[in-house]
């Protein structure tokens, strides 16, 4: 185990390298570029004995990964924003093919207007593709999660692709210390890919195929069932990882001082770090506040959210993107999870940090204050001047 100062992007690259990926394919887009540049170096120097297919688009990058995966290779790609959107059709293919591709995504806003900042609109538009989705809070979590994602994706009971997302610049270009596990340790955690049920040269079989409504439903249901098995499998994988590295990121949802909290913010990604500090401050002032960080967004950890509602009367869901015509994506999911449960806390949705705007301690404070004050409007855009009636209220 060595401690190195590195960016979130390098954490992605080193994790892919430690995972001994066999086929890499990618196309450059800011702020993902340093991930693939680093991997290109590692491959060129011989440190990583992998095939790096330099393609003419993200669409082709994902196709390369899906096809290489079909022959049994462990594959990696990384992208962001427009690149992820261009991949969309192929994301469905990866999941439908049951190809355990792992992808790093740097969460960036979507044009127009062109903008480079952190924003979850890119990955949120891929929620329905059958990919497992992780959101990381730190560079350490990025590295650890990529390794865990391979174990999870390649689990014979799951066999689904997984994306590990990190916020643009707040992780991608932020340097911080990261503990890099030794290769031998990673090898004992992540064995070579079990390539059963993929195409075998010389054997007549068709992967993909076409069906009528009858078998199509069955195949879709298999994907759904595999998704349902993810949370349990992840808990076991994290246990194994913890016993090797001592690190634990909380399974599907990480709670922070939420046990006895009157008000809890549900967060994702880097905003969580700032929120932790604010929670500590507010706790010191006597406010019973806490956090629940969604580490996993697909499958959505509904059980954990219901458990949270049992203990807390006020939940604020913080979204770094907005679903036009509805609300924040996480808030919609939280509300849906709570409907069938017995506990229906006050629910607010805070839209914040879009397009890379900073999520400051003041924002977090304000969200807790509003939550504790009572039921505000269901959806609140935090950065914009408040309408007069809300000013009066808050």
């Amino acid at each position, binding site marked *: 185990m060595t401690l190195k100062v590195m960016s979130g992007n390098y954490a992605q690259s080193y994790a892919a390298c430690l995972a001994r990926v066999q086929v890499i394919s990618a196309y450059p887009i800011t702020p993902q570029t340093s991930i693939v540049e680093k991997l290109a170096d590692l491959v060129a120097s011989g440190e990583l004995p992998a095939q790096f297919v330099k393609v003419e*688009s993200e669409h082709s990058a994902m196709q390369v990964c899906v096809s290489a995966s079909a022959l*049994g290779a462990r594959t990696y790609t990384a992208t962001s924003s427009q690149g992820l959107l261009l991949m969309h059709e*192929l994301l469905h293919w990866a999941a439908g093919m049951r190809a355990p591709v792992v992808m790093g995504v740097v969460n960036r806003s979507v044009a127009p207007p062109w903008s480079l900042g952190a924003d979850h609109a890119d990955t949120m538009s891929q929620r329905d593709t059958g990919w497992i989705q992780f959101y990381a809070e730190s560079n350490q979590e990025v590295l650890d999660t990529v390794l865990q994602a391979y174990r999870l994706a390649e689990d014979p009971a799951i066999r689904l692709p997984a994306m590990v997302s990190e916020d643009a610049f707040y992780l991608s270009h932020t340097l911080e210390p990261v503990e890099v596990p030794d290769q031998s340790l990673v090898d004992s955690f992540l064995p070579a890919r079990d390539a059963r049920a993929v*195409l075998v040269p010389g054997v007549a079989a068709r992967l993909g*195929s076409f069906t009528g409504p009858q078998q199509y439903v069955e195949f879709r249901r298999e994907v759904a069932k595999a998704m349902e098995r993810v949370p349990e499998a992840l808990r076991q994988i994290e246990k194994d990882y913890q016993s090797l590295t001592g690190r634990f990121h909380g399974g599907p949802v990480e709670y922070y001082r939420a046990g006895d909290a009157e008000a809890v913010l549900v967060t994702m990604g880097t905003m969580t770090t700032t929120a932790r500090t604010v929670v500590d401050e507010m706790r010191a002032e006597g406010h019973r506040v806490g956090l629940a960080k969604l580490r996993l967004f697909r499958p959505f950890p509904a059980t954990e959210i219901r458990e949270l509602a049992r203990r807390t009367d006020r939940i604020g869901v913080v979204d770094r993107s907005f679903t036009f015509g509805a609300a924040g994506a996480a808030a919609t999911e939280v509300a849906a999870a709570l409907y069938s449960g017995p506990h229906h806390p006050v629910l607010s949705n805070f839209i914040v940090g879009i397009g890379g705007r900073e999520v400051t301690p003041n924002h977090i404070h304000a969200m807790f204050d509003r939550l504790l004050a009572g039921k505000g409007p269901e959806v609140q855009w935090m950065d914009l001047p408040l309408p007069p009636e809300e000013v009066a209220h808050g």
Partner: protein
Amino acid sequence: MAKLTIPAPELMRAGHSACPGCAPALAMRLMLKGLGPRTVVSVPACCWTVIDTPYPTTALGVAMLDNPIESTGASISGLRAAADALGIQDLNILGFAGDGGTADIGLQALSGMLERRTDAIYAMYDNEAYMNTGVQRSGSTPLGAWTTTTPVEDGARGKAEPKKDIMGIVLAHRPVYAATVNPSFPEDFVRKVEKARVLRGPRFFHIFAPCPPGWRYASDRTIEIGKRATDCGIFPLYEVEEGRYHVTRKGGALRPVSEYFQAQGRFSHLGPEDVARVQAQVTADWERLLRLENGT
């Protein structure tokens, strides 16, 4: 029994769902005869998606992978990368796509595959329209041809634009080998595939592929129409190896293109001037091809 002029083993199976008289089906049969069993085929959305029959059956005696319509070039790059990474040797990797999936929506991925020198074969079967969706025009539909989106009505006479030159596009990438083949000439077809099989690097086939319903002719005329296409110079047979041209069939003087047009309903509205225009172009192209062969 007479000696077989093409290999006996059948790697395309009977029971498939192609229309009677489908040349793309015959093309796959011949292609696999030339490549043999250690082949993985990547197939985009096209008639062959359907021809291969529904789950749980497949009409290929080799491994097959489905891919979306626009990414066959990338798919075969991925297959080769995996084979190399996993140490799988002696594996033929074939992309088998329609003209729409190649010359239109899949052109970018094809160009990428050629440029990065993927060691694989890309075969485009050219039935000159989007047939799987019911005969709409593609960039590869020839001038004057009827399709459902280039109707023949009072003011419209089929497709108004000439056919895209896919061989020209491919050759601009300097592949190690590119050839035209036609199932009406099976020996030439299989010989070229066998030749391409042992080469390394990007290889390309442009396959002439008549389609009875799409071209509006009776299903028993498929081979005859293919012969006419080559004999009148509309679809000359040649190969280009490391830039060197070689015309593999020269039957003396070219037959008139009208013989080719007459046989198909999709051209039945064309008048003598239309035919004369095409004739002039075909003659010029043929002479250009001969010059390329002679290096002049």
